[in-house]
């Protein structure tokens, strides 16, 4: 257990440094984007007839920071704010902290993407094993082809295809939004039903677009393991088929956990197209609207969230390997 704690401590320290580096880079990039939203807001207030001093004061109160400090001052304010989990205030939603906006949007992303990813992972793994074992048969071929095909279709094409089929041709599902406003929010049947109904198409899009990758990756992994000597050795010792199958499955699935962890890490920012098309108020949608609205504080916050997600996913994947792969475990002991 001490080994895992030691590893975790090392990872967290490295992750912290990486987050600071990314925050610094994104601070300077955002800072150098032409156009100053503060100045725009300030000018707007003056146009509305406010006195210059009053307008400046109003902007300062609304956004909680000084738009005219030196670059260094702004940077150190930003970083010390970060350390207190203060990501600043949204430009388009005056008075609302960026962190609140992000956490509010996060739930609309995390649950559907998680469900979609895990669903596609499960189905993809099972079909991938089958495609590998029956790779000379027709069904195996069909599964591989289904994988290549779905892997090749861009997410947004798939999303629009599903909208056309299930919302236009056979109108059984809502085409956009996250929930019907008719229903009283809370833990009641109609509201939850509406939530699920709206989530079906986005989740299906995630699942279908990720499925192809899992099938192909699992198939090639199983084929590799099938050619390994220890599988033949186990068969020659007369080990039962069901046990040999477990040997194959466990060894083949190992490399896929890295991919799963990384795709879960990207979950926080990866659903841009899907959320845009289904008008689903998640993080991807938020990122796009922050870009079009020039809400730089929100944009910086969203970038940072994606960074944190990816770094955390890497840490989780690595610790997970320490638990499931004996080779990784003793590799650490030796060093």
């Amino acid at each position, binding site marked *: 257990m001490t080994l895992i704690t030691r590893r975790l401590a090392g990872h967290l320290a490295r992750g912290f440094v990486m987050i600071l580096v990314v925050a610094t880079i994104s601070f300077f990039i955002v800072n150098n984007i032409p156009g100053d939203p503060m100045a725009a807001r300030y000018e707007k207030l003056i146009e509305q007839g406010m006195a210059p001093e009053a307008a400046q004061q109003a902007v300062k109160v609304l956004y909680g920071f000084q738009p005219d400090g030196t670059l260094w001052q702004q940077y150190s304010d930003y970083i010390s704010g970060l350390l207190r989990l203060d990501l600043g205030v949204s430009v388009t939603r005056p008075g609302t902290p960026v962190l609140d906006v992000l956490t509010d949007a996060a739930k609309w992303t995390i649950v559907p993407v998680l469900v979609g990813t895990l669903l596609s992972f499960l189905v993809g793994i099972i079909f991938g094993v089958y495609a590998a074992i029956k790779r000379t048969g027709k069904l195996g071929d069909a599964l591989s082809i289904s994988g290549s095909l779905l892997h090749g279709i861009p997410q947004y094409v798939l999303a629009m295809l599903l909208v056309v089929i299930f919302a236009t041709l056979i109108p059984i599902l809502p085409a956009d939004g996250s929930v019907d406003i008719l229903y009283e929010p809370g833990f009641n049947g109609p509201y939850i039903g509406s939530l699920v109904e709206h989530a079906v198409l986005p989740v299906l899009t995630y699942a279908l677009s990720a499925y192809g990758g899992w099938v192909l990756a699992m198939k090639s992994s199983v084929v590799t393991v099938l050619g390994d000597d220890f599988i033949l050795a186990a068969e020659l010792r007369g*080990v039962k088929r069901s046990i040999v199958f477990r040997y194959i499955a466990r060894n083949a699935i190992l490399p896929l956990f890295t991919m799963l962890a990384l795709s879960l890490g990207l979950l926080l920012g990866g659903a841009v197209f899907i959320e845009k098309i289904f008008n689903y108020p998640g993080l991807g949608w938020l990122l796009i609207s922050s870009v079009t609205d020039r809400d730089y504080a929100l944009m910086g916050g969203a970038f940072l969230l994606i960074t944190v997600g990816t770094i955390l996913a890497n840490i989780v994947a690595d610790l997970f390997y320490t638990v499931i792969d*004996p080779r990784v475990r003793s590799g650490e002991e030796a060093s």
Partner: protein
Amino acid sequence: MGTQAPGVRIGGLTVVYKTPAGELPAVRDISLTLEPGTITGIVGESGSGKSTLALSLLNAVQPPGRIAAGSVEIDGLGDVVGLAGEELRKARGRHIGYVFQAAQNSLNPLKTVGKQLLDLGRSHGVEDLRGLVREAQELLGRMGLDGARVLDSHQHELSGGMRQRVGIMLALVLNAHLVVLDEPTTALDMITQANILKIVREVHAERGLTTLVITHDIGVVAEVADRLAVMYGGRLVEQGPTREVLGAPQHPYTKGLIKAIPRLVGDIDEARALPGRPPTLATVPKQGCVFRERCALRMDVCDDVDPAPQVDQGERGPRTVACHAVTVKEHA
């Protein structure tokens, strides 16, 4: 099968591999008898078909290969070529032990040796798993290893020589009395190699086994085998008691092989490599002698007629040579 060393009679065995050029034989019409309680060595170059022959003993030729003709009669089991499914699975491990080449990874990298031992026991319906573990520890201890520690280890924590001993243990722990060792010492250092061979010899004698050792190293065979069979191009060209074959080789290929071994004393130039290359699946002649391309004694008849094995009943067991030149000399 009981605890008796079984005899094995391979008769007219042909194994073919499916290739784009059609089905090509890797092993052609081989007959070989393993007497109960003996160690038989099979030597041959890479691609001579010796590993295919070894796998045939377990009816485990891997696709795209298949046994096209012949039989492998094992005492107590019958003809294994006719076995399939559960019957075949139960024969493997329980009656026939198979030891892989040491350098190959014959263990599941994610499980400890002990857990794989239990998998093996459960697969064969062993009820006394504790007894099985005890037996395994004893075998490992017998081979100079700390049994408890090894059972608790993963493959990557063991050296090549240790893995090979684990392989031997797994082949014997279910009390199989026919043991096939495929290149048991390849890729091991000389000292470990000598150790493993000593273990093979001792365990063979102690447990009363019938053993088949496949190797490309004549030294290994000279060390352990009672009888020696030489393979070339999927054919058995010569076989007989090890001492006789090595002391007075008759087939020109066997002679060439022995001449190619460098000696510890004397001039290194005395070792002569055989000219030419061994045939591959695609280049093995379809008729006539498989060795004629590299043979110094080549005659016209060698091009068309496959030399039939000539059996000579010697004092220490039968001696067989398949060569026209040898036959002509004897009859002249």
